[in-house]
């Protein structure tokens, strides 16, 4: 559990932790960790990109105070456009994971007709 800097009552008790952090799905824990890192990186990168969008939107209006940036609420049209861009970003970053690769490193080219040997 994350550390709580408060002396107020929490009404929380000890939980039984999941063993999910010990899981190895990719044959090598390092590879698993790289994938986890990749997801976290994607999260941070998207948060940065989305913040920039807010900054740009706010600056397009008047005033550039931090409070204005924090309080800005996207319009429905902005949300739709940003979500579309988010999906494009995800497709770019993670689309390769859906690629059903079948050729081993030793695979030759497929047989072709014509063109000599």
């Amino acid at each position, binding site marked *: *559990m*994350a*550390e*709580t*800097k*408060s002396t*107020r*009552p*929490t*009404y*929380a*008790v*000890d*939980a*039984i*932790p*999941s063993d*999910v952090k010990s*899981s190895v*799905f*990719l*044959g090598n824990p390092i590879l*698993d960790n790289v*994938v*986890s890192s*990749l*997801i*976290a990186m*994607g*999260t*941070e990168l*998207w*948060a940065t990109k*989305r*913040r920039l969008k*807010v900054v740009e939107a706010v600056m397009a209006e008047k005033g550039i105070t931090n409070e204005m*940036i*924090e*309080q*800005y*609420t996207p319009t429905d049209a902005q949300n739709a456009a940003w*979500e579309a861009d*988010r*999906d494009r970003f*995800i*497709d770019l970053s*993670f*689309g390769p*994971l*859906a690629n*059903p*690769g079948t050729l081993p490193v030793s695979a030759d080219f497929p047989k072709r007709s014509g063109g000599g040997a």
Partner: protein
Amino acid sequence: MINRRALFGTAAGAASMAAFFRERAAYAKPAGDIEVRGTMGRLERLGTLDLESQQDFTLGFRLWQGKDLRKTTMGLLNQALTAKGIDPKQPITYKEMLAIADANPQINVASKTWLSNQQVTWKTLQDYFHANADMYLAEMEAADKVGPGTLELPKDFAVPEYTRHEIHIQPGGYVGDPFAGHIYHYGTNSFYIAVIGHNEQDQIQKRVAGNMMTPSDGKVKRILDMGCGIGQMTVALKERFPDAEVWGVDVGGPMVRYSHLRANDIGIGVNFRQALAEDTKFPDNYFDIVTSYIVHHELPAEKTREVIKEAYRVTRPGGVYTPLDFQSGGLTGPAASLHARWWDHRWNNEVWSLSYHSINFTEEIAKGGFTQFKDSKSMMPGFGARNFYKA
């Protein structure tokens, strides 16, 4: 800052929101209420723009996973089955399914990325609430003792071990983190969008509550929501039956505190008690309607039977019992659906879900003494038809 009034000041939804604001007209904002970045309807916006964006990413990733990546991986699973002479639609066992799925690295990559995304969802939320712990604990403290609803946190309440698991790998689960309710609420909003649809305004619980069957004599004075979580169904029931005394009970102290805080914040007078669904402490025959919302697949089968027994005890003759949960029964099935179910069980840490599927929940309710309505229908896609009454 967007507030509830500004958001619903548009033509769209104005009619439905008119009643909401009439209800709130005489209601003052609770003392100590924290709305760092305003609200979107009844949902408080997350406390920072970055946290909101991180959740937006994990939602987007979840959507992509469920659509593109799952299509690929399930295609690969079906190919592997066919190569072994197994019809993908043919029921097989978990063991048979895992032997094939585990051998495919791309299925494992899909699983791994899903898991990592789930961990990021929880971690970012938990980190934020803990970094601002004193502020949010103070808000709950201020809300604990004020209405319009009530909150009961019995001293020396014993939390059974079977409830202490980190369901959905949510850190601390429902009982072990002071912000379990906050974290659950924002995390599950993402689940809903990916699986069923938007639920930020309790749309799903409202729809279900709106369709809930009532006693044949029409009398609905008291309602109980067993294992109420963050009280979304409890609130929705009060909105449908505004004159009824509505109760929600849950094992998680942080969950009922958040339920109470949220209900107060939106001006709905419901009552919450930290209590076990199998031991609610209410008198016999007390309620006209007893319900629960996706609780039983998180319980061991023997606890499900105890909860049914308790539901029967507190439901008055002629009263209605409508527990909502997935279809159950059977530990075999087509490989793709078994894979999803196994995944939820083992790596989304739904530790009791296979126990739930080891019994036929609908039949267990009938064994508990309830009678099924003749026109009983499933209340949600994928759920069993379980509309019962106590003769």
